[in-house]
């Protein structure tokens, strides 16, 4: 009787072990990839497009007369990049990436953009109106610097489909506008074509 129970227990534990092994084998395999690698999962807007656009725009802008010809690093602010495509594209990510790369170059300074203005004024109010801070350390109001230039642009696409082919063409356009004169100091575009075939 005891022998029989032993055999049953061994049998059950073997079953549990094999089930655990099976589960371990069929589970998802996770590995880190290269964030800079070319991504071709489908023809939709993707990480490679974001990286290519930001890089092309930054490099071109750095070489422009408005930036390279300036004695001090000019102050720039980010305005809107309009998404005129049929896809959802977070254009803020593109402009943020451009801003980061421009900042790293040391050739440009950035003033807070419209979207960051609320937190900037909140902080100034907190320091000036709460009465909690030592006077000599308070960031004074009325000392913010206005931007000489603003960066704005658009992304548009043309998409064509057949049963077996999807062709996507993106054109990203960016302008550097002088805030005082309203003149466009620099403009560039980046074109991308992607074709997905079955």
């Amino acid at each position, binding site marked *: 009787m005891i022998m029989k129970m032993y055999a049953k227990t061994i049998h059950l534990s073997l079953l549990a072990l094999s089930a655990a092994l099976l589960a371990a084998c069929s589970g998802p395999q996770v590995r880190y990839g290269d964030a800079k690698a*070319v991504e071709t999962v489908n023809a939709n807007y993707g990480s490679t497009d974001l990286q290519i656009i930001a890089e092309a725009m930054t*490099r071109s802008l750095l*070489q422009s007369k408005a930036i*390279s010809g300036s004695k001090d690093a000019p102050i720039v602010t980010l305005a809107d990049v309009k998404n005129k495509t049929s896809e959802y594209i977070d254009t803020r990510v593109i402009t943020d990436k451009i801003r980061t790369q421009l900042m790293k*170059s*040391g050739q440009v300074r950035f003033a807070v953009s419209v979207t960051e203005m609320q937190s900037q004024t909140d902080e100034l109010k907190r320091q000036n109106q709460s009465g909690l801070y030592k006077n000599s350390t308070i960031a004074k109001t009325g000392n913010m610097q206005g931007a000489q230039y603003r960066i704005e642009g658009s992304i548009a696409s043309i998409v064509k489909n057949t049963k077996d082919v999807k062709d996507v063409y993106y054109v990203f356009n960016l302008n550097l506008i002088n805030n005082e004169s309203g003149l466009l100091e620099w403009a560039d575009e980046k074109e991308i074509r992607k074709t997905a075939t079955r």
Partner: protein
Amino acid sequence: MRMGDTDSIQITDMRSLMRNGVLTAQVTIQNDSKSNLVAYRFKWIGKNGMAVTDEEAWKPITIAKGQSTVIMGIAPTPDATDFRFELNQYK
């Protein structure tokens, strides 16, 4: 620097100059074999052979058989004094 199956691609010319204070590179590549999907990037080098920024993104390019194409690269900072050209297949 080559990676992957890029033997059919010949680098026929490489040159650079300072334009508006930034190093600008130009590389001409030619494909002698079948149509090829390759990716390229530049590595920008400053003083003492140090890289001036993080790695660039790989940029895909389709180059047909017999086609020659000119690739331009602009350094991300004025600190770059030299460059390397990297070629890789992506499919």
